[in-house]
C-alpha cells in the first residue's frame, strides 16, 4: 500500500523535475533510495533500479539470492539478475538515449556508470529524492510509529537480558530474536559497556557486564523498511549520584530539543536548544565533534537519515518529518551516556513516538 503511494509521489515529482527516468542505487548500508522506489530491502550485493515516468520499474541485482527475494517481495517490479551489474545497467541506459535521466544517490553510483553521465544524459538528482525521503506521507509516519512501539518493546527485552557476566553481544541476540518474531526484518544497534573509559558506542566486542557498568544502546528496529530509534542508558546495579546527575542533564537537554521541534524551525535550532543546556552547566565542550557526532537525525528508510541535527545544519524542519532527538555524548565523570526519543514533526510541535520512560534504568544484580 505505502509502496504504491510512494511510487505515485515519486513519478509525479519526476514529472515536475522534467525527468523521463530515474536511476537509483542501493545496498544494505545505504538502501533508502532503492527501497523508496522499488520497496525492495536489499541485503546482499548491490542493486540499481530504473524508474520510468509511466511507473514501470526495472530492478537489477547482482546476487541470485537477492533476485529470488526481490521477485517475492516486489511483484510489480521487473527483476533482472545481473551478475555484471554495471555492464547490464550501462547497456540498459544506452538504450534510453535522448531521455533525461536523474540519478540518486550520485556519490554511490558505480564509477563506470557515473563516468558516462554526460553521454547518458544522467544528472545528479540526489537532493530531489532526499526531500521525498525526509517529508513523509502519513502512511510512512504510521510505519515509523509501529517501529517506535517495537523499539519500546525491544528495549524491555534488552533490559531483561542484562545481568552481570553476560557478554554485550548476548543482549543484542535476545533483542534480535524478539524482533524477528514480531515483524522486524532489520535493526541497527550499537552498544557501550563500562564507565569513564567508554567514549562512544560501537558494535559489541565481547565485553562482559559487571556491577556498576553503564550500558548504553541505540536500538533501531524497522517496520516495512522504516526505522525508528530509541536511546537509553541503564546501570548494572544501583546508579550513583554522578550518573543520576548526568542523566538529569541529558534529560533536560533532550526535552529542550524536543520542545523546539515544530514545522518551520531548522535542524540547527533543535541542536542549539540541546547544546544550550550543556553550555548552561559548563559542559559546552562535550557538544563538539571531539565527543559527539550529531545531536539527532532523521528517521525513515535509512537508520541515520537526513537531516542531521547539528548547529551548522540549516535544513528547514517540516511537518511530516520524523526525527530522533538525542544529546548523546561523553561525560567526564561517568563516561558516554545516551538518551533519545523519536518524534514526528507537526505544525505546532511534535508527537513523541517512543514511550519508554526517560529514566536512567537500574537493573538489579
Amino acid at each position, binding site marked *: 500500500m505505502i509502496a504504491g503511494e510512494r511510487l505515485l509521489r515519486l513519478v509525479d515529482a519526476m514529472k515536475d523535475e522534467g525527468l523521463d527516468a530515474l536511476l537509483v542505487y542501493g*545496498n*544494505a*548500508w545505504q538502501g533508502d533510495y532503492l527501497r523508496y522506489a522499488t520497496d525492495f*530491502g536489499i*541485503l*546482499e*550485493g548491490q542493486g540499481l533500479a530504473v524508474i520510468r515516468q509511466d511507473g514501470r520499474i526495472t530492478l537489477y541485482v547482482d*546476487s*541470485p*539470492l537477492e533476485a*529470488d*527475494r526481490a*521477485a*517475492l*517481495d516486489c511483484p510489480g517490479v521487473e527483476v533482472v539478475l545481473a*551478475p555484471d551489474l*554495471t555492464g547490464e545497467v550501462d547497456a540498459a541506459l544506452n538504450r534510453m538515449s535522448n531521455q533525461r535521466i536523474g540519478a540518486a544517490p*550520485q*556519490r*554511490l*553510483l*558505480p*564509477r*563506470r*556508470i*557515473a*563516468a558516462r553521465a554526460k553521454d547518458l544524459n544522467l544528472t545528479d538528482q540526489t537532493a530531489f529524492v532526499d526531500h521525498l525521503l525526509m517529508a513523509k506521507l502519513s502512511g510512512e509516519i504510521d510505519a515509523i510509529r509501529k517501529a517506535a512501539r517495537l523499539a519500546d518493546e525491544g528495549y524491555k527485552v534488552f533490559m531483561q537480558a542484562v545481568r552481570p557476566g553476560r*557478554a554485550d*553481544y*548476548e543482549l*543484542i*541476540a*535476545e533483542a*534480535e*530474536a*524478539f*524482533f*524477528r*518474531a*514480531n*515483524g*522486524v*526484518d*532489520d*535493526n*541497527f*544497534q*550499537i552498544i557501550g559497556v563500562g564507565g569513564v573509559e567508554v*567514549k*562512544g558506542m*560501537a*558494535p*559489541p*566486542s*565481547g565485553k562482559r557486564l559487571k556491577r556498576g557498568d553503564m550500558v548504553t544502546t541505540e536500538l533501531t528496529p524497522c517496520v516495512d523498511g522504516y526505522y525508528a530509534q530509541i536511546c537509553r542508558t541503564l546501570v548494572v546495579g544501583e546508579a550513583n549520584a554522578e550518573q543520576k546527575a548526568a542523566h538529569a542533564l541529558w534529560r533536560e537537554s533532550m526535552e529542550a530539543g524536543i520542545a523546539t521541534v515544530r514545522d518551520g524551525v531548522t535542524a540547527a535550532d533543535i541542536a542549539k536548544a540541546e547544546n544550550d543546556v550543556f553550555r548552561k552547566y559548563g559542559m559546552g565542550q562535550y557538544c563538539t*565533534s*571531539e*565527543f559527539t*557526532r550529531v545531536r539527532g537525525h532523521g528517521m525513515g528508510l535509512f537508520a*541515520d537519515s537526513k537531516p542531521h541535527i547539528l548547529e551548522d545544519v540549516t535544513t528547514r524542519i517540516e511537518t511530516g518529518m520524523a526525527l530522533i532527538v538525542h544529546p548523546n555524548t561523553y561525560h567526564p565523570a561517568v563516561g558516554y551516556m545516551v538518551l533519545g526519543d523519536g518524534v514526528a514533526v507537526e505544525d505546532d510541535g511534535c508527537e513523541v513516538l517512543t514511550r519508554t520512560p526517560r529514566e536512567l534504568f537500574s537493573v538489579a544484580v
Partner: protein
Amino acid sequence: MRRGLMGRDEAELPVAAIEARLKRLRDAMAAAGFDAFVVYTNNVRPSAVTWLTGFTPYWSDALLLVGRTGAPAFATALSKRVSEWIRTTDPVSEIVNTPKPGSLIGERLKSGTSVRKVGVLEYDTLPAGLADDLAAAAPAVEWLDGTALFAGLRREIDSAERALLARADAIAVAALREAESGKASDAGTLAGLVEQHARLHGAEEAYIAVAPDLDADRRLNRTSQPTPLADRFAVRASIAYKGCWVRRTRTFAKDGSAAKADAWFEGVVQSIEPGKPLAAQLAEKLKALPGATLDSWMAESCIGSYPLSVVASSRMAANAATLNGELLMLTVELAIDGAPWTGIAPLFVGQKNS
C-alpha cells in the same frame, strides 16, 4: 548493519597471518607492475579489507591503501571517536579519520614520487564520489583494475581463515538445528530462534531466510512474519564469524524424507575433486540418489570485496569450469520423486571437509 560480536583475537587471527597476506598482495603487485593497491570497504563489501587488516565496518565506508612498503593507510569517514574500536580489530594499518577518504588516499598517492600505476579492486564499481576524489587528488595516476589479481590471491585459504570458517560453519550448523526443536511453528519465530542461537554463539552477522512451504515455492526469503511452516520447508543461515562467511541451507520434512538427500549431500561435499568440471561431478554423483533429478546448482566463493560471489552455476556459461583449492559454498536443488529438496554446504575443493 553489523551488530553481532566484532573483534580480533590474536589467537584466532595473528598479526603474522595478516602480514603474510599483505606480503602476498605486495608480491603480486610487484609482478603486475602496480605501485600501490586500493581496496574499498563497506558493510556489504567488507571482505577484501577484512582479509588484509582484520577490520570489518559495521557502518559507513572506507578505503585501504597498500603501498609497496610500510603500513597500509586506512582512511575512513567514521568519526575519530571510533578509532579506538577500529584499532581493536585492525592491528596493522595507519588509521586516518577524514570526511573525504578518497581525497586523502589520492593525496597520499600524489605525494609518493614513484607512484604511477595503481591497482583498484573492482574499479568499475568503486563509488563515484570516492573515485572522483581519488582522481582529482592524484591526476597523474593511472588507475587499473586489480580484481583478477586479488581473486588469484584468494584461492589460497590460510590456516587462520580456515579456523574462522570452521567456527562460522559450526555456528550455522548448530543454529539450523533450532528448526528440529519443535519450538517454532511459524517462519518468523523460527528465523528469530536460528538468529538468536547464531548471535549468542558469537556470530558477527546472521542472515536467516526461510521457504515456509517448499512444495509451493522453493525461493527463500528473510522473514519476520508468522507464516505457518508447512510439512516441508527450508531454512538458510548465512553466518559471519570474525569476517568469515559460511552459508548453509537445510530442508526439513515432517515425514523424514529429507534425510536421504541430506546424507547424499554430505557425501558430495566430501568428495568434490579438483580439476574436473563441477557440473559433471554432480551429475555423476546424483546416480547414487534414486528418484532424484538435479534442478540447479551454484558455487559461491570469497574472491573480492563481497563475502560470497557466484563463481559457477548451472545458469552460467562458465558452468564447465574446473575448480581447485577454493573455498566454495555449494548450492544444490533437487526434486526427489517429485518433492523439492534444497541444500547449501561449504567445502574446500579437493580437500577433506570436516
